[in-house]
């Protein structure tokens, strides 16, 4: 019975669903994740066969060959059995071959390089403790945290890090790949046939806020993508209050870029109000069915960044000398800085 429990558990879990559509490996939303899922299914099936055999023999042996009071004679001492041993050497070999062939095929398919593919959209992913920078060299656009892609296009990634090793993972679209420092950059590609927002995560321990280093992949129609590109290139929306604008320029734009202004050290903030989250971990209720309004999130973040994301590199605005009113003003500006696409 104990051995049946895991099987029952499997089935009950399958019935309960296999996780979120935008997050689960078991609900692939793109061809790359689908290919990997097929391989997972194949390997699970082979391995279930193995498990069933081993469990069945175990159960039989455990029940049948218990020691009983009438056992006074010693059992026959069997040295081995050549035939049996050949069988349980050859059958696993065959099973391994069945798995090895599609594995090798997939390995090479996944290894295809689309770096020079004119039809693919090139994206340079630059990972930082604890945020993601996405650069589109073909369009001269840089953004952060939300990766916007058009549906049905090959997205060719080049992954690098500017500090420690991270790992770029969008479970429902593709498996992960590490972001290494210069010299060992990685390339791969995926595509998303359906419109939607997919959750991405950092999968390599990278410091205290490793668990909060999330990002989103937003797949939009090709038309929307064009609109978004244009919106990203528009100049920065000005802050009406002159004093606040000055503070923003002196304190924020020294690290952040917004539109055509600022410096690209921290995350690019163009259109940050229309993103899925603030600081990747405070979900915005405007686009998610959970979380808080973007303005509230923005205030929470700016008032104490370390509380939201321990160990992050952004100086606390309070330490920079900003007053509560200034922080709220900037939060309001950023929360309302939305892109239409």
């Amino acid at each position, binding site marked *: 019975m*104990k*051995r049946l429990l*895991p099987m029952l558990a499997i089935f009950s879990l399958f019935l309960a669903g296999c*996780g*979120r559509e935008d*997050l*689960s*490996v*078991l609900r692939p939303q793109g061809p790359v*994740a689908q290919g*990997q899922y097929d*391989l997972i299914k194949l390997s*699970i099936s082979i391995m279930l066969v193995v*498990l069933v055999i*081993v469990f069945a023999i*175990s159960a039989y*042996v*455990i029940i049948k*060959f*218990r*020691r009983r009071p009438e056992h006074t004679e*010693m059992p026959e*001492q*069997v*040295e*081995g*059995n050549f035939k*049996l*041993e050949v069988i*349980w*050497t050859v059958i*696993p*070999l065959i099973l391994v071959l069945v798995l*090895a062939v599609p*594995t090798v095929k997939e*390995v090479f398919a*996944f290894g295809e390089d689309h770096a020079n593919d004119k039809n693919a959209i090139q994206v340079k992913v630059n990972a930082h403790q604890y945020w993601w920078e996405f650069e589109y060299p073909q369009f001269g656009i840089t953004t952060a945290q939300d990766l916007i892609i058009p549906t049905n296009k090959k997205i060719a990634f080049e992954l690098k890090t500017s*500090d*420690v*090793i991270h790992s770029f*993972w969008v*479970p429902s679209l593709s*498996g*992960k*790949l*590490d972001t*290494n*420092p210069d010299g*060992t950059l990685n390339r791969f590609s995926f595509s998303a046939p359906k419109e939607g927002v997919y959750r991405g*995560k*950092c*999968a*390599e*321990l990278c*410091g*205290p806020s*490793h*668990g909060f280093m999330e990002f989103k992949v937003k797949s939009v129609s090709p038309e929307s993508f064009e609109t978004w590109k244009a919106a990203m290139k528009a100049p920065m929306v000005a802050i009406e209050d002159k004093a606040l604008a000055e503070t923003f320029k002196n304190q924020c734009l020294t690290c952040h870029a917004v539109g055509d202004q600022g410096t690209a050290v921290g995350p690019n903030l163009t259109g940050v109000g229309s993103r899925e989250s603030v600081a990747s971990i405070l979900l915005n209720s405007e686009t998610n069915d959970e979380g808080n309004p973007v303005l509230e999130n923005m205030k929470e973040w700016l008032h104490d960044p370390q509380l939201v994301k*321990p*160990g992050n590199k952004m100086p606390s605005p309070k330490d920079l000398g900003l007053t509560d009113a200034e922080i709220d003003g900037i939060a309001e500006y950023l929360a309302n800085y939305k892109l239409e696409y």
Partner: protein
Amino acid sequence: MAHAHSVKRYKGLMDWLTTVDHKKIAILYLLSGGLFFAIGGFEAILIRLQLIKPMNDMLEAQTFNELITMHGTTMIFLGVMPIVFALMNAIIPLQIGARDVAFPFLNSLGFWTFLFGGILLNLSWVMGGAPDAGWTSYTPLSSTMYSPSHGVDFYTVGLQIAGLGTLIGGLNFLATIITMRAPGMSYMRMPMFTWASFVTSAMILFAFPAITVGLVLLTFDRVLGANFFNVDGGGNPVLWQHIFWIFGHPEVYILILPAFGIISEVIPTFARKRLFGYSSMVFATILIAFLGFMVWAHHMFTTGLGPVANALFSISTMLIAVPTGIKIFNWLFTMWGGQVKFNTANLFAVGFIPTFTMGGVTGVMLASAPADFQFHDTYFVVAHFHYVIVGGMVFGLLSGLHYWWPKMFGRVLNETLGKWTFWTFAIGFHMTFFVQHFLGLMGMQRRVFTYLPNQGFDTMNLVSTVGAFLMGVGIIFFTINIIKSFMQPKGCANDPWEDGRTLEWTIPSPPPEYNFKQIPLVRGLDAYWKEKAAGNTEMTPAEPIGPIHMPSPTIIPFVMSVGIFIAGLGLMFSGEEFSSSFMSFIFNNWIVCGLGLLITFGSMLMRSLFDDHGWHIEPEEFEEEGYKHG
């Protein structure tokens, strides 16, 4: 003539500090391994408590990272491996009919360096923060730039010192098994546990130098400002990953092979049948060890090694399933046709088979590189390696401890408590780790200190935490059982299981200092069983009764290890600015480090200059034989 010089015999604490007796060193290993195992277990409970619900703020992120790092490092290097060494020390000389290991002095040195390395590593908790870069300590996260506390220094220096002990132990067992087998015990008559330990020791010999080199390089990077893993200085962080896993993967087999050996002893004893396919078991063990060195890059599929490397390492990894499968079926067919008795030792051994198989099949799934892109660094992997290490290794150890406890301590563990241990631990184990497969597949990456709600992770994490507590209860039952066993008098039979097959069951429990009054003559595999089947009650001796030469107890290994410990601390803090100028002076001018090295090398000099001839036990001093079964 035999008493040419007398030897000082110590009592109490001094006896334990100076002992070179393999049986006492085994107990020392067991005690310290058990202590570290408890620390690692406590860390695990804290980790699971933090993950019991989403967005839990019980622990800080930094503390959580220190806990996961120390949990992994402690369990592998300081918890499980020493308990393996405890069993190897306690049993191997007895199984091969020897009076001690080949190098008793080295044996003691190996233990003390391990213990001081372990203590050094754990001192980090009270000396400015534990290591926080994961047990794998990937660079650049483990560099001084991203891990500025001394935590990782404790890791590199502590593990180098402890690793020294492991390497010494491995060498010692190789030499012991090669040179000290009783007359008639050819390689192919060695008990399976001895075989497994032999192969394990060979693996230690090749694997531990790799990690030592890696740790030395990382120490140089951190303490002396070298650039082995620093890209800006021309180094390469991927190099660390290779070095680590060239050690790290064989290490997994160093852990599991002795468990295979234990299972191969326990099952035949309680099934009353010889091990099915002994020679194929031996070759499967060797093959696993060999392949174990060929698969390290499967931990690095997502590092970006390119399709050719990924394909090759996928296939080599899958191949390990073949010898492992051979073992599984051989154990099952050992029971087939036998008369299987289910006491605690055998419950753990039989429970090992399906549990370990579950860990094995997920291992094959992970071997498929494209699928691993999804599995890697998620809870699926966490589930997999806990199935192998806990469901395999720890089940094996608990089986072995229940099985050999009477031999080590002369007392049998209580069966009722033992069964409670098994059922709570086994059920708790499956509760904790089975659900984690699904957590991983549903998108939960590993080593996260908390997680957002509404991702479908909440229930399973709760189940997992409850399971962890149940495992803790199992270990508490085991501890109570141990305490209770020491409340009874010593003096169980030589062969308390009545079906013992190997030489350790022919001598008293616990054995006298010299183990065998007369070295036995071995006439086949399962030497004792063979004699019993021929109607004999004891082994035929291979030598006449005579004085027995024994090694002298010595404090030198202890002092030598203290020296290394001090030198390690001196090295780590050589660049530290202390508030006290005296402290800064002695550390920054390498005085502390030098002092430690002086102690160590001075001890070595002492050992070399003064000959130790050992001493003899005369036949009239032999202990009264304990009463025998049958």
